[in-house]
């Protein structure tokens, strides 16, 4: 891997990523917020983002892969319960609980 290759790859990848964003702007000019197409496209987007999220949890590429699946599921479950029943600042609370749990697990078992 040479530095030149990485730089060219960076420029090309930045360009194609921006092209996707710009294509969205271009296509959106004909879409109204109340149309059926808008509803379908937002369903597709939610499904894509959910797919990415679940892949990052079930098939992670980094250190998370060394945490057993059941532990990952329990940690996410606890955070979801806090998020569902929490009141003020529930996102911060739920995130903090999840991070604290996974750090504790790593501290004791890894």
């Amino acid at each position, binding site marked *: *891997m040479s530095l030149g290759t990485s730089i060219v790859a960076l420029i090309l990848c930045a360009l194609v990523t921006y092209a996707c964003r710009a294509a969205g702007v271009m296509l959106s000019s004909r879409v109204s917020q109340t149309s059926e197409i808008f509803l379908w496209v937002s*369903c597709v987007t939610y499904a894509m983002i*959910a797919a990415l999220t679940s892949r990052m949890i079930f098939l992670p590429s980094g250190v998370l892969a060394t945490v057993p699946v059941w532990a990952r599921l329990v940690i996410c479950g606890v955070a979801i319960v806090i998020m569902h029943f929490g009141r003020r600042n529930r996102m911060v609370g739920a*995130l903090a609980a999840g991070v604290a749990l996974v750090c504790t697990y790593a501290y004791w078992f890894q």
Partner: protein
Amino acid sequence: MKYNHRSSSYLTLFVMSLKVRLAHVLHRRTALKRGVRDAFGSPMLVLLAGMVAYGSVAHQQGFDPWVTSLGSVFIFALPGQVVMQEMVIAGAPLISVVLAVLLTASRFVTMSITLMPQFQHRDRGPLLYLFVHLVAMTSWAVSMRTFPSLRAKDRLPYFAGFATAVWLVSFPGTFAGYWLSEEVPGWMGYGLALINPLFFLLSFVELRSRTSLVAVLLGLILGPVTYLWDPTSSLLVSGLLGGTLAYWGVKVWGRGHS
């Protein structure tokens, strides 16, 4: 006398229009400030953690610090950055690196299509081509949640404030992660890696629309399944399949029950 009267009424009209204009600008400024304020807190923390974790992994794999950090600024999409880094290190041909990144970036097409129509008609000009670079998972999820409670004309300033604030942490976050990778204790890395997917998972809990919830559930199931089948097209396939099934299923279900 008549002339005077008319000129004074013109003056009143002028002052009134100035006041309206000023109120408009001030209101938009308030929306922009609210966006910046909302960015501080969990969204910025989540993005920072993701960037720090990415930077430290890039250091361990021997990737260049500048290419790594500038990637966060100009690509501003972690899954794409990770794919690019792994494939370049593995020595894959440039064309396949670009195609793989293009497939992971395909979600931005639909993310922008769903965000842009919510802006006021007057704001939907060429400036959007600048702001659209700031569309990412965090800014999209927060905007979709907040926009319904904002007036249409306040949405673009809110988005600009929020997304710019979040985008500005990407470079320092990645750079710091790169150089601190040996200082960060191992157990802390687990928290940094989890916080990103956890944030997205938790933001689904706040969804109120049944159709979106069904789409999310199908996406959660299809994501890992399609990834095991074919990693590069996984996102696109699960999005199209899960989203269409949810849209069509809820429509048919609603028709049967009405």
